[in-house]
C-alpha cells in the first residue's frame, strides 16, 4: 500500500481525489488530504452565491461523508508547514508528521494585496474564502445601520472585481470599481468592448474609475477613503481588493522545488515538479510559464496527475489551454473566447457595435476566412456556447462570417444544430465532458432526461454555462431515438399546454373532470394542472373564473389577491389610469368604511388591502354601485394599460394616448392568458408611460403608432420589440388581437410574453410573418377568437354578487358568520398592516 498526501483541499485538490478513486488500481493507495480551511472543499467559482444563500453547505464539492465512503482521509483546519523531501515526510502546523510516497501540491493561490500604505485598516477585505464573505457581510450590515449611503470600492476591474462589484451592489452599498488600467477586464476585452461594458455597468449603478493608481488608504482605524493623486480622492467606507492572485508556493520554495520568477511550482506536461515524487495541480502549478486562474484547466491537471500516479503515462496536459470565459454577473453578458485580441497580420476582425443597446460583438477570423480564431461578446452572450464550440472544434464557418454575429434576416440560425458538433467536441469544459459522452449516456439508457445526463456525466455541475447546450443535446438525442421528450404539465398529464389547448378546443370540454378522465394519467389533478385547465377553458369557452371555482388558482377562486395573513386586496379597474374625482372619493370612502390599507399600485391603480373573505362581497357591492368593475388584478389576465397624458394635455403629445389606452384596456379586460399581461401607451417618443417595458406598448409617432411587443419589467427586464411602425388605431387592434391570441394559444404555463417571444423559433421575424404576413393562415381565426372573448366579457364580481349560490363561497366559516379570529393587525404610518411573520 502506497501513500499519497494531498496538500490543499480546494476545488482542484478535491477533484484529484474524486478522479483518483474512480480509477482502477486506486485501491492500492491510501490518500490523506490536508486542508487549511475549516471546512471540506467548496465551490469557489460560485462563491458569490453565498451572499444570497449564506448556506456554506450548499457550496460543498462533496460532504465529509463522501471522503469516508471513498477511503480518503480528510484532515481540515490543519496547514502543512514543512516538507522534508529526503525523508519524504511532511510536518503540519500542529507539529504532526506524516510520510508519503507521492505528494500532490494543490495549495491554490491567495489574493494579491498590493503594498499600498494603509491596506491593513479595518474595512479592507479580500475575496477568496467563505470567511472573507462572512466578514464582508457583517461589516456591510454594520455600515448599513450606521450610515444611510455607505460606499464600498473594489480595487481591480477584472473578472473577479466586477463580480465583487455586483456583490457590493447587492449588499446595499454604493459600488465603485477602481482599476489601474485604462479599461475593464484588461485580460479579456479590447478597448471598445470594455467601453461598452463600462457604460452598461454604469447604467445598472456601478461607478467605474479607470486609470487610477491608489497611493494610500485613508482613515484612522477604519478605512474612510482612497487617495489616487494629490487632490484625487474617493471617499469609501469599505474596500474589497481584487487585484490578482499569487500562487501559494511558500512551502515549495522552502523545500527547494523549482518555482517560477513570479511564483508557481514549475511542472511538466505530466504535472510532475522538479521532484519525481511531487506533483502540483491547480492554481499553484506553473505550466507553460503560465498560472491558469480558471477551474477547468485545474480539473484537467487533477485528472492527468491521478492517471500518472496510477501508471498511465499517456495522460498528459495539452499544449494549448482554452482560456475562454464568460462572466457570471447577473444581468450583464460578457464573454471572450480563443484569441480575443489579434494582430491584423493573423486575420480579420468583424465588429458589430450598438451603443444604444450596450451591445458589442467581435469575432476574429483567419486570413483565409475559413476558421474562427476568437472573439468578444458584450451585452448579449447568448451565442457564446455555439461560437465557442465552432472555435474549439475548428468547425466550418459561413462564407460571410458576419452572419455569426449579425442578426440573420430570415431568423434562421447561422450555426446549424447542436447535433452537427463532432463527437469529441467538449461541451462541458469544467468537467471535460464531450458531446459523444452525453449522447452515449442517453443512447445506452443510463439517462432519460437532462437531470439524468447531469448526474451520470457530471456535465453542467461546474460553472453551469453549458447547461443550455446539454439540454439541447439531450432533447435532440432523445428525439433521434424516437423517444418523446416529456413536457407534460405535471404528473397528471403527459400533454403540454399547447396540446391541451387544442384538445379542449376540438372536443369542446367544459369541465376539469372531462379533460382529466379522457386525457389524464388516472390521478385526481393538482395545483398545477387545475388552474391551467381552468385558464384554458376560460379562454376557449369565453368563461369567467366563477365557472368551477374549486379548480381556480388561490386568487381567482375568491376573485381577489390573497395577502400574507390570508386577507385579500381589492383592485377595481381604472382604465388607462383615468379616474373622476367622484370615483376617487368613493374609493376613499369605501376604504375608510372597511378600514383598508390603501396604496397606489405600480400599474397606476388603487389597491385596498386587508379585506376579509366575509367583507369581499360587501365591498364589491359598494364599488359596483359606484360604477366600478373587477380589475382582474388577481388573474393571469390583462392588468392595466398604463398611459401618459398624451396630446390631450401634454405639449409634446402626438396622439391621444389616454383615449387609446382606455380603449385597449376595455377591449382586453378579463381575458385569461398563460400569465398576466400589461400594456402601455405613450403620446410621444419621450415614453412617459414606459410602454416598452410592457407586454405590449404603443408610442405615438409622426403618421401613427409604433407597436412594440414582448417587453417586461420584473426580475428579467426586457424591452419590447418593434412589431410594426406608423400604423393606425385599427391596425394596432388587429395586430394586437392576433398577437395576444397567438401567445395565448402557444405559450407554456406561466410564461410571460417576453420569455415566450424570446424562445419562439425564428424570433421576431417569424412573429412578423405570422402576425402581419399571415404565414400560417391563421390570423382570421385569431381575430375571431379574440372578438368572441371581447363580446362575451362580463364583470365576474357583478356576476358573483348577483348569484346567491356563488356568494356562499365568500364566508370564512360554513357554519358561522364570524370572521377569522386569528387575524392581528399592527399600525403602520397612519394605516394598518398584518403582524409580521417571525
Amino acid at each position, binding site marked *: 500500500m502506497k501513500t499519497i498526501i494531498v496538500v490543499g483541499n480546494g476545488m482542484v485538490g478535491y477533484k484529484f481525489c474524486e478522479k483518483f478513486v474512480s480509477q482502477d488500481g486506486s485501491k492500492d493507495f491510501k490518500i490523506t488530504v490536508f486542508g487549511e480551511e475549516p471546512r471540506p472543499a467548496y465551490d469557489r467559482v460560485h462563491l458569490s452565491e453565498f451572499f444570497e444563500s449564506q448556506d456554506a453547505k450548499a457550496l460543498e464539492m462533496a460532504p465529509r461523508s463522501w471522503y469516508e465512503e471513498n477511503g480518503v482521509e480528510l484532515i481540515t483546519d490543519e496547514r502543512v508547514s514543512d516538507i522534508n523531501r529526503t525523508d519524504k515526510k511532511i510536518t503540519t502546523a500542529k507539529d504532526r508528521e506524516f510520510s508519503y510516497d507521492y505528494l500532490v501540491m494543490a495549495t491554490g493561490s491567495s489574493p494579491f494585496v498590493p503594498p499600498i500604505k494603509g491596506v491593513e485598516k479595518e474595512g479592507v477585505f479580500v475575496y477568496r474564502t467563505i470567511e472573507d464573505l462572512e466578514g464582508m457581510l457583517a461589516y456591510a450590515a454594520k455600515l448599513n445601520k450606521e450610515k444611510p449611503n455607505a460606499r464600498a470600492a473594489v480595487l481591480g476591474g477584472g473578472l473577479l472585481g466586477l463580480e465583487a462589484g455586483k456583490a457590493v451592489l447587492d449588499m446595499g452599498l454604493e459600488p465603485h470599481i477602481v482599476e489601474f488600467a485604462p479599461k475593464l477586464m484588461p485580460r479579456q476585452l479590447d478597448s471598445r468592448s470594455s467601453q461598452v461594458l463600462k457604460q452598461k455597468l454604469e447604467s445598472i449603478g456601478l461607478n467605474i474609475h479607470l486609470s487610477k493608481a491608489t497611493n494610500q488608504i485613508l482613515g484612522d482605524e477604519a478605512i474612510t477613503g482612497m487617495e489616487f493623486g494629490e487632490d484625487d480622492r474617493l471617499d469609501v467606507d469599505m474596500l474589497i481588493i481584487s487585484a490578482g492572485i499569487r500562487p501559494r508556493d511558500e512551502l515549495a520554495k522552502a523545500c527547494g522545488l523549482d518555482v517560477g520568477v513570479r511564483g508557481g511550482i514549475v511542472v511538466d506536461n505530466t504535472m510532475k515538479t522538479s521532484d519525481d515524487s511531487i506533483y502540483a495541480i491547480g492554481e499553484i502549478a506553473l505550466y507553460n510559464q503560465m498560472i491558469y486562474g480558471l477551474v477547468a484547466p485545474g480539473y484537467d491537471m487533477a485528472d492527468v496527475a491521478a492517471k500518472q500516479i496510477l501508471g498511465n503515462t499517456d495522460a498528459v496536459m495539452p499544449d494549448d489551454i482554452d482560456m475562454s470565459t464568460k462572466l457570471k454577473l447577473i444581468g450583464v453578458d460578457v464573454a471572450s473566447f480563443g484569441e480575443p485580441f489579434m494582430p491584423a497580420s493573423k486575420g480579420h476582425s468583424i465588429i458589430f457595435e450598438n451603443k444604444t443597446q450596450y451591445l458589442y460583438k467581435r469575432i476574429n477570423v483567419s486570413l483565409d476566412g475559413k476558421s474562427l480564431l476568437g472573439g468578444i461578446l458584450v451585452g448579449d452572450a447568448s451565442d457564446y456556447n455555439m461560437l465557442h464550440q465552432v472555435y474549439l472544434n475548428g468547425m466550418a464557418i459561413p462564407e460571410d462570417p458576419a452572419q455569426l454575429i449579425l442578426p440573420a434576416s430570415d431568423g434562421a440560425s447561422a450555426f446549424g444544430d447542436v447535433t452537427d458538433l463532432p463527437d469529441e467536441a467538449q461541451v462541458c469544459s469544467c468537467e471535460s465532458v464531450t458531446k459523444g459522452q452525453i449522447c452515449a449516456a442517453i443512447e445506452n439508457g443510463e439517462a432519460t432526461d437532462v437531470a439524468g445526463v447531469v448526474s451520470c456525466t457530471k456535465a453542467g455541475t461546474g460553472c453551469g454555462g453549458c447547461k443550455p447546450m446539454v439540454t439541447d443535446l439531450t432533447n435532440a438525442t432523445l428525439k433521434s431515438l424516437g423517444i418523446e421528450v416529456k413536457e407534460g404539465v405535471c404528473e397528471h398529464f403527459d400533454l403540454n399546454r399547447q396540446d391541451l389547448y387544442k384538445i379542449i378546443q376540438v372536443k369542446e370540454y367544459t369541465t376539469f373532470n372531462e379533460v382529466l378522465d379522457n386525457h389524464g394519467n388516472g390521478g*385526481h389533478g*393538482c*395545483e398545477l394542472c387545475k388552474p391551467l385547465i381552468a385558464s384554458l377553458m376560460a379562454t376557449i369557452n369565453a368563461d369567467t373564473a366563477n365557472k368551477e371555482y374549486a379548480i381556480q388558482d388561490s386568487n381567482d377562486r375568491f376573485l381577489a389577491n390573497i395577502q400574507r395573513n390570508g386577507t385579500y386586496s381589492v383592485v377595481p379597474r381604472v382604465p388607462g389610469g383615468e379616474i373622476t374625482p367622484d370615483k376617487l372619493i368613493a374609493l376613499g370612502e369605501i376604504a375608510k368604511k372597511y378600514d383598508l390599507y390603501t396604496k397606489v399600485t405600480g400599474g397606476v391603480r388603487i389597491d385596498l388591502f386587508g379585506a376579509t373573505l366575509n367583507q369581499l362581497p360587501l365591498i364589491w357591492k359598494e364599488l359596483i354601485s359606484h360604477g366600478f368593475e373587477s380589475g382582474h388584478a388577481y388573474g393571469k389576465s390583462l392588468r392595466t394599460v398604463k398611459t401618459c397624458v398624451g396630446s390631450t394635455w401634454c405639449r409634446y403629445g402626438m396622439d391621444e394616448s389616454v383615449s387609446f389606452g382606455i380603449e385597449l384596456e376595455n377591449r382586453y379586460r378579463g381575458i385569461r392568458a398563460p400569465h398576466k399581461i400589461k400594456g402601455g401607451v405613450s403620446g410621444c417618443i419621450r415614453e412617459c408611460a414606459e410602454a416598452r417595458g410592457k407586454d405590449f406598448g404603443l408610442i405615438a409617432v409622426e403618421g401613427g403608432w409604433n407597436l412594440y411587443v414582448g417587453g417586461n419589467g420584473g426580475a428579467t427586464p426586457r424591452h419590447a420589440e418593434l412589431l410594426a411602425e406608423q400604423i393606425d388605431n385599427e391596425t394596432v387592434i388587429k395586430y394586437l388581437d392576433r398577437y395576444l391570441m397567438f401567445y395565448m394559444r402557444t405559450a407554456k404555463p406561466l410564461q410571460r410574453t417576453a420569455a415566450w417571444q424570446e424562445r419562439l423559433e425564428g424570433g421576431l421575424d417569424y412573429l412578423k410573418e405570422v402576425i402581419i404576413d399571415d404565414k400560417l393562415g391563421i390570423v382570421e381565426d385569431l381575430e375571431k377568437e379574440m372578438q368572441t372573448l371581447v363580446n362575451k366579457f362580463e364583470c365576474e364580481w357583478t356576476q358573483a354578487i348577483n348569484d346567491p349560490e356563488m356568494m356562499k363561497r365568500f364566508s370564512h366559516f360554513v357554519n358561522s358568520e364570524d370572521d377569522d379570529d386569528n387575524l392581528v393587525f399592527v399600525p403602520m404610518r397612519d394605516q394598518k398592516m398584518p403582524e409580521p411573520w417571525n
Partner: protein
Amino acid sequence: MEAILDTYKTTKLEDVKVWFKAASVNDFPIDGGACVKYKGKQIAVFNFERLGKWYACQNVCPHKMEMVLSRGMIGDDKGAPKVACPLHKKTFSLENGENLNGDIDAIATYPVKIEDDLVYIGFTE
C-alpha cells in the same frame, strides 16, 4: 404562535368522543373545501368527490401560521390525496397530514362521517 398548533391534535377514529354536526353536504364545493368552526378551533373540511371521500384537518398552515388551508386546492401526489396551501403551495397529505414537498411539521387530521347528507367531524372533546 406555537400555542395555536398545540390546539390541533390528530384524532383517530377510535378515539372520537364527540361527533360535531358541521353543515350540510351541499355547503361544500365539489372537490374543494371550506372551513368549520368548532369551539375556538378552525377545521378545514374537504369533499374529495373524485375519491368519494371526505377529509378534515387543521385550517392553520404550519408554514406561516395563517388560517388558510380550507381555501387551498386539493388533488393527489402519486395517488395520495393532498391539499396545497394557497399562500406558498406547501402540500400536505390529507390522509396523515405530512408535508409532501418540504420538511415542515405535519398538520393534524380529523375523522369525518356523512349521515343523512350532513357532515360530522370527530373530536376527542
